[in-house]
């Protein structure tokens, strides 16, 4: 409250005007939506007939409905595979790029391309790459004498889709880590060099502890993204009846609402998703206090 420009006279009205869109957004866009979704999650409503009270049925069916449970375990599995993948690979890429080799800016552009373009457009190519009979990947495998794999079948789709999601996220992770790496003072490495530490030791004893803030941030962001993953899953695993071979929570919310017109059930799923994300964030910040080193 100490600093700041004091609005004079009628400028108070201007202040209100400047803040008005944000206030409307807070009231209707955020608070209103949350309250409405909570209320809806206790109702049964297809938007065609009048809504009726459903009590806790929507929440009970979250536990009893196999399909809904499956979507939750799929999301957890996806997150468990995706987050470490993104963090480790983009850190590795950033470390390699930070060696200040000639022509590194070319590589930076190349690695960032998937982060620029839409998942929808690139998923179309990945569909051609993963194709069973005509796909590029199976063609290469056959040349190497390995039998063809059905990359987007029920038992493999999870891994194939996680790979594409990681591919799309490396660019952003790399930038976060590069920013963290360039902030480490050069002298630290000079000192380590004098003490006779080799590159591997320098990486694990010096680099990793000093970029724990970036690792934490990237891990948190990737987790949030993983819980909300939708685009590649929709584009690569969609089947008949609005189903998917690996339905995740957001996919299931979409299908429940806009395919089965079960907006109450979809709301309950959205609320559970929010709570699960909040729990993960709480764990993350607890881990941060214990393990993240800020200078």
């Amino acid at each position, binding site marked *: *409250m100490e*600093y*700041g*420009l*004091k*609005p004079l006279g009628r*400028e108070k009205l*201007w*202040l209100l005007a400047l*803040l008005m*869109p*944000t206030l*409307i*957004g807070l009231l209707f866009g955020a608070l209103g*939506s*949350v309250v*409405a979704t909570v209320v*809806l999650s206790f109702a049964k409503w297809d938007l065609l007939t009048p809504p009726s009270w459903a009590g806790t049925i929507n929440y009970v069916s979250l536990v009893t409905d196999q399909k809904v449970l499956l979507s939750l375990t799929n999301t957890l599995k996806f997150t468990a595979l995706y987050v470490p993948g993104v963090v480790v690979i983009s850190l590795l*890429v950033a470390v*390699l790029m930070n*060696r200040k*080799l000639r022509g590194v800016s070319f*590589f930076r552009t*190349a*690695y*960032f*391309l*998937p982060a*620029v*373009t*839409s*998942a*929808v*457009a*690139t998923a*179309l*190519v990945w*569909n*051609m790459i993963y194709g069973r009979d005509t796909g590029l990947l199976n*063609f290469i495998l056959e040349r190497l004498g390995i039998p063809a794999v059905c990359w987007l079948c029920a038992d493999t789709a999870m891994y194939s889709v996680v790979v594409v999601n990681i*591919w799309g996220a490396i660019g952003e992770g790399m*930038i*976060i880590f*590069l*920013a963290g790496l360039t902030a480490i003072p050069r002298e630290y490495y000079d000192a380590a060099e004098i003490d006779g530490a080799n590159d591997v030791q320098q990486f694990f004893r010096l680099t990793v502890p000093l970029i724990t803030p*970036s690792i934490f941030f990237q891990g948190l962001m990737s987790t949030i993204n993983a*819980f*909300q993953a*939708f*685009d590649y899953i929709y*584009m690569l695993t969609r089947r008949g009846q609005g189903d998917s071979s690996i339905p995740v929570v*957001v996919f299931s*919310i*979409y299908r429940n*609402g*806009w395919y089965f017109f079960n*907006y109450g059930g979809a709301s309950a799923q*959205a609320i559970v998703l*929010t709570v699960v994300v*909040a729990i993960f964030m709480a764990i993350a910040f607890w881990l941060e206090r214990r393990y993240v080193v800020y200078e």
Partner: protein
Amino acid sequence: MTRQTQKLVLDLASYGLLLLGGILMIGPFLWMISTSFKLPADQFTKTLIPPTFTLENFRQLFSVDLNFPLLFWNSAYISILITAGQLLTCAMAAFCFAVVRFKGREALFTLLLLTLLIPPQVTLIPNFIIFKYLRLIGTSVPLWLPAFWGGAFGTFLLRQYFLTIPRDLVDAARVDGASLLQIFWRIYMPLAKPALAALAIFTFQGAWNDLLHPLVYLPSVPNTMLTVGLAFFQQQMTHGGKFTVLMSGALLSILPLLIVFFIAQRQFIEGISLTGIKR
């Protein structure tokens, strides 16, 4: 091994790894470009250079039944409206939070930041219901209207940047009799161009690439956005076996962002590191 040869070996290994990774990163794009210039008969040939080079796929995109130009136009104007709305309303709020002194400022800002925790799926359902009752489903209004009520992300990003602008400028302007609005529009907005550019690119990219929201609000072709249109074409064409047309559509759809990226690569990357570092 001396220190120097060790360095050389490591450098070569780094190049090797980066090159291998680079091929994996841009490989799908090369395949997209290659397929979009192939004849439909050659759609599954495994050569990077098309056996016969054709522009026929692009011509088909502009045929009446696909109506690609409409998808392109919709994506363009909706994304531009969303970007304009976000830049304006986020900057307005960010200026208040960063510069102006008023009661409850910190509390309001904290409340705004808390909304970052709300996943977009939670707001989607009630918003959809409201827009349905307003008979706006099937129009672009539900897509761009919410961009005009600010947002935590953009406001936070701009506020952080506004805070770095020297306060002496405000005091000097005040002495010269400048009003609140003049200080906002004549001093802060021009000086915040780098942050505004980063936010603009970030927002535009998000809007252009969005799938879930247009899928809900503009669910059917031809009057929809590129992402939904391409998803629909995918369903149609993988059965009809026209991957070549699909690839030319995908290529055209990413072209605007690629152009912006190659012109403003620095802002693109800044947008990410700005949000990453200044937590």
